[in-house]
């Protein structure tokens, strides 16, 4: 009964927040962020443990896997563009991955945070199911990696549109590459607002980053003796 109530509550909040977003169209009110804040606050206020929430939440969560698989469909629709721009795509993904790995590490080193935290931060640009095992492998804290991955995702969603405009990235390819490389699947969900082409490019960037990142991430840590 409680599980069904939690499912209904999650969907209800999401539907309401989607309507609010459609009216305001302010990036701070993107439904996934506002819904998370409302649901998380409700759980904290009523002292409902996350595990109890997940008795219902897991049913919604179980759609995430097949939904990521479904991203193959917009990618297939854009397959000609993807083959045509293979070089820009590869270059974009690799520079994104390199920047994600090095900047997090540099800044953390600069302010002098603990080595374990630095290692936890390394895989943040990768999608959560990649970030967890990679952070574990290199000696970070997997549960904390989830939070960093989420912050990276929400940064892309909230700040992405304005930031990309400011730095002069206008095309579908550049936008998709930026959102998918930096903000994984959450960024890809945002890219859908701009159409099929940026969404496909974002899916490509996310997938390639996940594949390359799972190999390059641990290699990077080993090479730089972090």
């Amino acid at each position, binding site marked *: 009964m409680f599980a069904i109530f939690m499912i209904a509550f*999650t*969907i209800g909040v999401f539907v309401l927040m989607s309507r609010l977003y459609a009216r305001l169209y302010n990036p701070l009110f993107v*439904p996934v962020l506002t819904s*998370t804040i409302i*649901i*998380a606050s409700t759980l904290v206020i009523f002292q409902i443990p*996350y595990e109890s929430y997940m008795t219902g939440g897991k049913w*919604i*969560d179980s759609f*995430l*896997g*097949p*939904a*990521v*698989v*479904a991203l*193959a*469909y917009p*990618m*297939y629709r854009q*397959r000609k563009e993807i083959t045509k*721009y293979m*070089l820009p*795509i590869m*270059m*974009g*993904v690799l*520079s*994104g991955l*390199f*920047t994600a790995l090095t900047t*997090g590490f540099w*800044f953390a080193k600069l302010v002098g*945070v603990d080595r374990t935290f630095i290692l936890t*931060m390394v895989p943040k640009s990768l*999608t959560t*199911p990649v970030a967890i*095992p*990679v952070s574990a492998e290199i000696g970070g804290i997997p*549960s904390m990696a*989830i939070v960093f991955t*989420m*912050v*990276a995702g929400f*940064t892309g969603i909230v*700040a992405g549109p304005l*930031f990309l405009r400011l*730095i002069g*990235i206008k*095309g579908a*390819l*550049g936008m998709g*590459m*930026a959102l*998918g*490389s*930096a903000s994984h*699947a959450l960024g*890809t969900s945002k890219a859908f607002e701009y159409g099929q082409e940026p969404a496909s490019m974002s*899916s490509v960037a996310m997938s390639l980053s996940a594949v390359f990142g799972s190999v390059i991430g641990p290699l990077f840590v080993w090479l730089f003796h972090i």
Partner: protein
Amino acid sequence: MKIIKTIIQIAVLYGIYFLGESIQSLLQIPIPGSIIGLLLLFTALAFHIVPVEWIEDGARLILTYLPLFFIPATVGVINYPDFLSWTGLLLVIIVIISTLATMAAAGWVSQFFQLRQSRKEAK
């Protein structure tokens, strides 16, 4: 009839997802099953092993609600109240800056090579 067709198509996507998960646990690689499934389906569609009509309606429907499916996972943040500390805040700021830098690098570099390619084609 369309509803039944769409439900079957979503079941097909589930099937491919589980196939990806099985491959992942079999090979013991850190690439998630969903990403393996995505790459498998894309390859199968591109080589016409799976006709696009088999998954089209299901994929469209499930992708419409993509942001909803993230929420149970993101709500999990309540398990980490440690982030409401100075170190936590500092780390979050670093992640934000690094994410913006990543967007700039990936966006600029891909755009640069795209423009170069278009110029070559124009000649």
